[in-house]
């Protein structure tokens, strides 16, 4: 009640943020909005974590640039984009020892990406794969062993495309034999034709919920760009929803947590990062209500239940990690070209 009357006053005078006791302001992806994840931290430190979701890295960076120093304390960012943020002076160095790297899956430390000029700026917190998710009751699982099946004509009109340009362009590249690390402006033009034919073979291009709805209702049977993060939450309802990494490979996504430059609460921010990377925090993040994904810290395995680990396919990770390639890391121009291509695809 007290907070509510505060809110009225705050609105009237327009100083809403200043009046609340202590806040940690986090720029995040939707999995961090889960109260189950935030509440233990809020209670332990007597603070409130304010979260704001953002969509693509470019928009997130623009948001930070337009804010004033101190507006933001921590942010979730694609591990491969940390360099772009550091280059613009948006991230603060991560205090040494914040991330329990010793118990990490070694492949997802991604030191090259979270370190700039010898300084560590972020720590990977969660990872997974963008590959093919499908309904095994409606699709021949053997076909899903290769990305070619999506272009074969056999599944025309039963495919949905996940609406994020980086992983899907990465996958289209893999099908065309282009490694994600070679995906530059020139290689991109070569992907236009296969991308457009993928579009004409598909029913829709949709966000997380649109894709889940379409898969769950049988509207489509295959989702390119999907993976465990999309099917895990549906597993209890429909065990037929499955995913696989085809022979061409899949894409490894890795999200990381960083402290924002200019924060007025560096200690609290560091505590938050530590909490999320702790075994308990990692387990809660891994099974967040928005989407599931593998925790970067192996120690979370002690906290997760066997069923949860089975859904996450804990035991297969070594083999998956071997076959997956990292997200494409486009420079500014390539990124713009990718988005243009993506817009063209949507519009045709």
């Amino acid at each position, binding site marked *: 009640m007290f907070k509510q009357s505060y809110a009225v006053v705050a609105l009237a005078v327009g100083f809403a943020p200043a009046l609340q006791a202590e806040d940690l302001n986090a720029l995040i992806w939707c999995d961090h909005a889960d109260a189950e994840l935030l509440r233990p931290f809020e209670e332990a430190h007597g603070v409130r974590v304010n979260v704001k979701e953002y969509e693509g890295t470019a928009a997130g960076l623009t948001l930070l640039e337009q804010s004033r120093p101190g507006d933001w304390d921590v942010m979730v960012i694609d591990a491969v984009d940390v360099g772009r943020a550091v280059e613009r002076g948006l991230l603060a160095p991560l205090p040494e020892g914040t991330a329990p790297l010793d118990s990490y899956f070694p492949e997802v430390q991604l030191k090259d990406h979270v370190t700039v000029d010898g300084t560590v700026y972020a720590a990977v917190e969660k990872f997974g794969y963008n590959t093919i998710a499908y309904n095994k009751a409606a699709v021949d699982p053997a076909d899903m062993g290769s990305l070619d099946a999506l272009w074969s004509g056999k599944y025309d009109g039963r495919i949905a495309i996940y609406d994020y340009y980086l992983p899907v362009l990465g996958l289209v590249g893999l099908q065309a034999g282009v490694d994600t690390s070679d995906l530059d402006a020139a290689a991109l033009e070569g992907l236009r034709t296969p991308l457009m034919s993928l579009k004409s073979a598909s*029913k829709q291009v*949709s966000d997380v919920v649109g894709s889940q709805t379409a898969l769950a209702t049988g*509207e489509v049977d295959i989702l390119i760009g999907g993976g465990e993060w999309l099917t895990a939450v549906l597993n209890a309802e429909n065990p037929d929803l499955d995913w696989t990494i085809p022979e061409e490979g899949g894409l490894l996504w890795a999200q990381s947590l960083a402290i924002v430059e200019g924060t007025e609460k560096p200690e609290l921010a560091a505590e938050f990062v530590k909490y999320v990377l702790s075994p308990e925090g990692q387990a809660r993040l891994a099974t967040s209500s928005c989407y599931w994904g593998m925790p970067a810290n192996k120690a979370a395995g002690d906290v997760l239940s066997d069923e949860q680990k089975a859904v996450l396919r804990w035991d297969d990770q070594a083999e998956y990690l071997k076959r997956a390639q990292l997200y494409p890391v486009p420079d500014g121009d390539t990124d713009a070209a990718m988005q243009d291509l993506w*817009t063209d695809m949507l*519009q045709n």
Partner: protein
Amino acid sequence: MTIERREKRQGAALVAPALLWTLVFFAVPFAGMAIMSLAHLEGREIVQGFDLGNYLRIFTDPSFRRGIFVSLEITLTVTVISVLLAWPLAWIIATRVPERWRRMALLIAVLPFWTSYVVRSYSWALVLGEKGVVNNALIGLGLLSEPIQIMATRAATVTGFVHFFVMLLTLTIYSNLIQLSPNYARAAMDLGASRWQVIRLVILPLTLPGVMTGAFLTFVLCIGDYITPQILGGNNELSLPQLIMMQLGRRGDYPMASALSVVLMAIVTLAYAASARWLKMERL
């Protein structure tokens, strides 16, 4: 000081706050946006200038140009269908439904207005899906053997829009009809007009201002809406608002978003100019 001058001063003082509000929070931001539309992005830096590049791109890049057409096509379709569906409904409620049920009938006609807008669009997804109510009913009735795809097409977007605007238009047309004196119809009948002729030659023209006002509002609200095409259209084509939100949400390209908004504004202004002779906006 004459009485008239005092009157004028006081009148002006009463109008001033509203005028000021509109100028500061509407006219100035719009001017700012127009200036921003002449800037461009270099890397992530916004470079202000006098650069028509954004506009050039909107009218030459097929994806942007198509966005304008997609928006116009959807909006015109929606406006026409909504008027055609709403007019008879309003007429039936106003003249056929017994008087004591009229308010009730009108209330039912606009009932879903009070669900949250976002949820209302989304609930059409449940209705139009492959296993949704519509397909199930059609198959159950033996009218279809296979489910048809409605969801994630333009038809779904149009359906979601029409649903909302039929409610809005029924309301505006009804209030117009109810104000008409029954004497017009009676006089026409006395002069030997048939029932259809009365509707077509007397009532319809008399409701034209109401219809046009409603149609213009439909046009404005429809062409600027992001939610409905985003939820129901399946991203198989992009409308102007979707393109604008894409510039903001994914690319942080404010200059381009501004230029697209100015184009949107220009379209709405043209629509206003085209229908202005019938509109009485301040007499809604």
